């Protein structure tokens, strides 16, 4: 398995270089270093000297990808692309164009994101599986039928509706939790309840319906029929056999997102005033802060690759027939 993981990490390198290259190209197609300087220096009284100085201080006065004026290897290395990219492969994200430590920002902002995303993930998984099992258990009854209708209806509703509707109902009408905000430590609890509740409810439609499909597919297999023939109760059949065998598709969808939980959710964090990573990239794009954009895209790619590797590893844990070689 170790060899497999090392091989996957090596495969990841060209992917990360490609992602970095693409981010760089997309960013600088839209923004020039002069535009970046103007945005950072403000809208009034910006002089060409100030722009030149800003670019020089941050290394944006160099050629983008190829320095024809340099000699030898410096033609490739004495460029914005090389200088801004190379540090990231050792996770040195450097400073934002505003001057703040990006790693420090990420460390600070990932915890509020996790405080929302982790409970939504865990509770959501539990609720979705339970609801799906319930529908599978009562298949072809009014519960199954109403459950599917409810799931389709919930899937069709925009996530923004859940947020605004949830804030209106729970905070504005019932006055049970704050509409938005965040605090540290235990005091964060009252702020987390509503976004977690909305996150879980908003995910039930698609999640439960997907798991129901998986469970129903498993429920028609021979081993289930055998289990029933042996006289096992329906609950034992579902939880003891169907659930275990349905773990592979469940893990495929679930494990891959675990590392990405750090990245937070843009809309949810914005509406609930959660100081997480969700809006970090969007704010950086709006502020034309390339240093943050490249760091966050790179981090997102790394976490996605880590998620895929973890998914592969998790297969071996739930299915002894699978070996990673």
């Amino acid at each position, binding site marked *: 398995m170790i060899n497999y993981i090392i091989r996957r990490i090596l495969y990841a390198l060209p992917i990360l270089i490609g992602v970095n290259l693409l981010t760089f190209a997309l960013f600088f197609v839209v923004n020039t270093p002069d535009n970046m300087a103007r945005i950072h220096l*403000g809208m009034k009284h910006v002089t060409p000297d100030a722009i030149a100085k*800003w670019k020089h201080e941050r290394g944006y006065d160099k050629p983008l990808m190829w320095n024809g004026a340099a000699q030898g290897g410096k033609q490739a290395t004495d460029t914005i692309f090389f200088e801004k990219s190379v540090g990231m492969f050792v996770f040195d994200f450097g400073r934002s164009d505003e001057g703040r430590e990006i790693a420090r920002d990420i460390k600070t902002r990932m915890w509020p994101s996790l405080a929302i995303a982790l409970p939504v993930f865990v509770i959501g998984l539990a609720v979705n599986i339970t609801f799906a099992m319930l529908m599978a258990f009562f298949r072809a009854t009014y519960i199954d039928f109403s459950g599917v209708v409810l799931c389709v209806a919930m899937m069709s509703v925009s996530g923004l509706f859940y947020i605004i509707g949830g804030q209106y109902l729970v905070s504005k009408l019932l*006055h049970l939790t704050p*509409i*938005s905000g965040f605090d540290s430590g235990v005091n964060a609890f009252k702020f987390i309840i509503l976004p977690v509740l909305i996150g879980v409810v908003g995910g039930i439609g698609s999640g439960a319906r997907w798991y129901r499909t998986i469970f129903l597919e498993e429920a028609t297999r021979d081993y289930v029929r055998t289990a029933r023939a042996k006289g096992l109760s329906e609950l034992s059949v579902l939880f003891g056999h169907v659930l275990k065998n349905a773990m592979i598709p469940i893990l495929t969808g679930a494990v891959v997102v675990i590392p990405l939980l750090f990245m937070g959710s843009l809309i949810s964090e914005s*509406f609930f005033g959660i100081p997480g990573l969700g809006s970090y990239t969007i704010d950086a794009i709006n502020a034309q802060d390339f240093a943050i954009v490249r760091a966050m895209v790179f981090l997102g790619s790394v976490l996605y690759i880590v998620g895929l590797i973890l998914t592969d590893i998790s297969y071996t844990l739930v299915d002894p027939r699978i070996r990673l070689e």
Partner: protein
Amino acid sequence: MRLSLLFFLLLPLLSACGAPPWNSPYPTAEEGKNITYASFAERPKHLDPAQSYSSNEITFTGQIYEPPLQYHYLKRPYTLIPLAAAELPRPLFLDAQGKPLAANAAPEKIAFSVYEIHIKPGMRYQPHPAFARDAQGKFLYHHLAPTDLDRINKLADFRQVGTRELVAADYVHQIKRLAHPKLNSPIFGLMSEYIVGLKEYTKTLARAQKCLAPGSQLDLERYPLAGAEVVDRHTYRVKLKGKYPQFLYWLAMPFFAPVPPEADLFYGQPGMAEKNLTLDWYPVGTGPYMLTENDPNRKMVLERNPNFHGETYPAEGEPGDMAAGLLKDAGKPLPFIDKAVFSLEKESIPYWNKFLQGYYDASGISSDSFDQAVRVATQGEADVTDMMKEKGIRLQTTVTATNYYYGFNMLDPVVGGYSEQARKLRQAISLVIDYEEFISIFANGRGIPAQGPLPPGIFGAHEGAAGINPYVYDWADGKPKRKSLEQAKKLLAEAGYPDGRDEKTGKPLLLYLDLTASGPDDKARLDWVRKQFQKIDLQLVVRNTDYNRFQDKIRKGNAQIFHWGWNADYPDPENFLFLLYGPNARVGKEGENSANYENPEFDRLFERMKNMDNGPERQKIIDEAVAIARRDAPWIWGFHPKQYGLFHAWYQNVKPNLMANNGLKYARVDSAMRARLRREWNPPVLWPLGLFGLALVAALLPAIVVYRRKERQAAI
């Protein structure tokens, strides 16, 4: 089961017995305290007074730093009064040989203006570790080793703090900082045109910076600046090139606030910036408040500065201020509020709902909530709705010193130029853009159509019939009336485009509008603009583009008609008319004159006017310059937005002041009333939860019964 039921039944009672409501976003310990709650939508980029310029930054720096001057809180027109200065400085004018000139000397004879500023003695800085000293009087934290910072993550982690008296040298230090090569002060370019030696000073500092050993700091004290010098402990002198009366307005901005050199030495140590321990993050001032918590992703907290020198609430204001209760605190010591908590609120819906629940003391009004908040009477007067009145919320409005306009690129071969035909084309277009309708539809009536470049309330602007733009309006029935479409069509025909077609080629006149519009509301606005042009058979092509491309087009003069805005730095006509001054053109000169308007007569009048003191002679020149600009019509003058603010009954002493940025010290909060009303407005409602639980059980019960029956059958 019974216990939990009892708990749920008692919880609302507990809430009613003095505990804060469940939906309160603030800690219980803050209940009933003398704190004001506000929000910010965008995190401030800079808090260093040499760099901060945006209004969302000055909201904070204005309360912390004390420049020499400030605006009177209540008087209108806006009046400068001393803040840290002992009195308003009067310039001493010198000729080229350095000989003094009379106060009324002609501007062209004045080679230098010298401002000698005396600051009040005894003012002290907020407690700060940069001033902390040991028993021997040595600074405790000025020679930190990198390991000393291992356990330091925020400013409060330094255990010792100190203070010292504010001295004139701190003001001189800050003026030097404007030229610091690492700070990129936004006003350096402008100030280097005026402050003697500032332009050369930045080069001196840049050279010195290059020679510095790694890890060491640039000591500005070693490099004198000719234009700013210390006279004595409480006096400093600023020497400007020529006459620049607007300099006094700059002296009321944080750019000219004092910065102690100790702060630069403290924050400049290796390892500090990596932990965001910088002056840009933790300001050091003498003002009524100090920033004690800076988490711009969540909240920023200002607390009363225990070393504040003391100031009293103004005893005089405008007529009507007494009746409005704005003078009842006259003579009382400032500030009234102990703490100000600013929470990040990016979305308007939660922000508005929290205001209605009483968790913010004041609020603006977004378009979405306008109808809920404001009722416009038939006479056009705005008032709060009954729902707001029931809550005791009151409305205050004021016309801002802001212009939103459509500009014509005067370099464009079709709409630009100074021929009579081009002028008439621009006048015709100006006439058909019905800003009264625009304000009514798209701004909920919050604005007034502009009659020229000067907003009302700025010296030089006229009220009533004398103030209308005669090329667009007639004065009828005591108010301006937009001229008829026939007049516009006539002008268009005289411009060579009868019925919107070029009379030489017969082709329809196609015009191009450049702007950045991305929001969902923009489509309707653009459709409206197109329809305005269609009124006189002109075809308009909207070239919607991203911000960078738009800026490029304006800079290179590639736009034809564009949408633009300007927010005043200070209440002087110079700060508006310079937007039309030829040498300030955008193309080739990188100035703020985006229309690239260049009329020699206007420029001559502007040059005469800009350095004059307010008076009849200046008014006459302004009138002439504005008349020229109106005739040439380089802008469709657009409108001046009206600022609408809603305030809860417990938030007092509020008077909109568009120039003063240090208004927090005047505000007062009745925290007992706020706590009571918050509890009244936000009682927890629990019965729907019980109902939901019952519904869930009722839905599942038949299924469970069926299952159990089925299981029993299987067992048989």
